[in-house]
């Protein structure tokens, strides 16, 4: 009965250890995933400029290209946001001005007067980008995820008069792949159509950066850039370096702070599971230690006899450690949690305790960072948090043979720790005293 009690208590301690190990692994994996996918970008925009609003002076291509020389910067995606008024294009916006358009239409340089006094027509956003591919394989754009529904994308270095237009813009203007429209008195050919799942983003047009710079008479001008850093841990340093390099000409922001804030609950869970894991392992070791001491005391005579027969301290201690290891490994293997572990290749649970990321995103930048980064493009500081929110809403537990192997190794450590005092007791047993007490 006593042995059963010891086994049950030890099994509970070990089950708790394994559970904490799984939880810790899952949270650590999630943190790493979030960090690697959402937190390694820095947004650069002209000082005072925000998502097509505000003022300021455009950055230059040279300034943006120079950011590539900063340590740990792996890519710089530049864009030039322009707006086509009705006098500059034959396109008609699919967005109705509504009361919001009337209220904000003439504010902040967002003039898009149709020409009729007192009326306002939402201008058509054209985003010149040097990374169109990334914007069309899934990424945040004005709260939507862009997907190329027909046609192709254009080359990042293209200067051709081509465009990829949003679905709503295409529908409103009866555009198909191969159709043309006019912008800045130039005929632009539609090479692709995308769906971003957002009314605002679907009213945009993406064009090669060089083309927009040329047509809009904005040579070498850049209105935003997304700088991709190789690791989230280097974001702060890179951000500082960019600020130093560009000075007061640019507003430099990163998603790091947002990510860290989003990850705070996960880090807490990780810490708690780590401490609980350590506590459970120590608890198991103490239980085993006391059990071993009890066993050694009960088998004192046997130990004395073994020594009298010529057994060395080492061989007797080894035998007891082997017994305790077998005991604890047996408990682990027979544990229901272990069985579940082995059979589960991975499950998922909604991350209910993780607050979903905020999803600001006033409008699409037209492109997103490359694989591994999912923020909105330059000029849209908060667009990226939507992707972060999506990442955080699912927490996958992943456990299998590797965790079991780790648990077995932990068991051996527990057995070794638990056997230490017992071993010391064994070495102190003198066969002469044991046999004399017969």
């Amino acid at each position: 009965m006593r042995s059963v009690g010891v086994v049950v208590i030890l099994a509970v301690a070990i089950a708790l250890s394994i559970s904490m190990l799984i939880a810790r692994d899952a949270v650590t994996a999630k943190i790493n995933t979030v960090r690697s996918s959402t937190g390694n970008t820095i947004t650069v925009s002209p000082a005072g400029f925000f998502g097509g609003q505000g003022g300021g002076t455009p950055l230059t291509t040279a300034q943006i290209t120079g950011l590539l020389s900063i340590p740990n910067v792996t890519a710089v995606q530049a864009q030039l946001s322009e707006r086509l008024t009705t006098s500059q294009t034959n396109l008609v916006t699919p967005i109705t001005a509504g009361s919001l358009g009337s209220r904000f239409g003439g504010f902040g340089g967002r003039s898009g007067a149709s020409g009729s006094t007192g009326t306002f027509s939402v201008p058509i956003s054209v985003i010149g980008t040097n990374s169109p591919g990334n914007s069309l394989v899934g990424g945040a754009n004005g709260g939507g995820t862009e997907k190329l529904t027909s046609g192709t994308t254009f080359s990042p270095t293209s200067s051709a008069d081509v465009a990829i237009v949003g679905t709503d813009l295409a529908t409103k203007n009866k555009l198909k792949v191969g159709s043309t429209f006019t912008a800045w008195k130039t005929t632009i050919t539609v090479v692709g159509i995308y769906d971003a799942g957002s009314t605002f983003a679907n009213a945009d047009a993406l064009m090669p950066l060089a083309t927009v710079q040329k047509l809009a008479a904005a040579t070498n001008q850049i209105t935003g850039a997304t700088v991709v850093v190789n690791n989230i841990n280097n974001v702060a340093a890179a951000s500082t370096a960019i600020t130093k390099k560009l000075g007061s000409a640019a507003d430099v922001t990163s998603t790091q702070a947002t990510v860290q804030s989003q990850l705070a609950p996960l880090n807490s869970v990780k810490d708690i599971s780590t401490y609980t894991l350590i506590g459970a392992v120590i608890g198991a070791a103490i239980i085993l230690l006391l059990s071993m001491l009890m066993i050694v005391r009960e088998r004192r005579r046997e130990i004395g006899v073994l020594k009298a027969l010529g057994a060395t301290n080492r061989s007797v201690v080894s035998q007891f450690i082997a017994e305790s290891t077998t005991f604890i490994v047996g408990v682990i293997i027979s544990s229901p949690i272990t069985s579940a572990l082995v059979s589960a290749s991975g499950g998922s649970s909604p991350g209910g305790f993780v607050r979903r990321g905020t999803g600001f995103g006033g409008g699409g930048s037209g492109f997103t960072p490359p694989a591994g980064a999912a923020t909105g493009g330059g000029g849209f500081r908060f667009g990226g948090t939507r992707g972060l929110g999506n990442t955080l809403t699912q927490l996958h537990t992943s456990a299998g043979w590797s965790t079991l192997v780790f648990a077995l190794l932990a068991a051996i450590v527990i057995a070794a720790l638990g056997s230490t005092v017992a071993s010391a007791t064994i070495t102190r047993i003198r066969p002469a005293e044991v046999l004399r007490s017969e």
Partner: protein
Amino acid sequence: MLNVENLNKTFKTDGGEVHAVRDVSFHAADGEVVAIIGASGSGKSTLLSLLGLLDAPDEGSIDMNGTQLAHLDAAGRTKYRSRQVGFVFQAFNLIPNLTAKENVKLALEFAEWPKDDRDARAEQMLSMVGLGADKASRRPNKLSGGEQQRVAIARAFSAQPQLILADEPTGSLDRATGQKIVELLRNAANTQKTTVLVVTHDEKIAKQADRRLEIEDGVLTEIA
């Protein structure tokens, strides 16, 4: 040949020093059975511990066929004990979770007996003490007291030691069984030319030995 000269052992207790063994000297030839008799607390168990290298004497020498044993270090004593000394205890002291054969093999393992020969040697020794294969596979709790002591004797003699120390080997057995055990010890001593020291307080058992020694207050004297 066992030669013991001026062996002394003192213990410190709360009540002061206890001189458990005083200037003990004696010898025993190969194959000889020597009985040591004495009352409880006379020092016979301490003497057995010293001779079995379970304890180190304060003074004196123990010479076994030319090898000085008294002042070996702990590792040396363990090694010598595993190969040259066999123990037979009153309470048998078999390892409870091992079978009779495994108990015998354990002693062979400690003596570093060739691995391939241990099985056969254990069976041979069990057969020598009258235990067949059916008993060899049983654990101690499935054997009678006499059978357990036979296993203990088989274990003690298995590694062909030079010295057997038997501490009240018949103390837990009925007279008839005890007599058989004594005969077994005698036969084994003769067959293997092993010196056997039997500690007993049973005069009838002691009289069957080749020689008798009496210990009283740590002092050993030979009984004519």
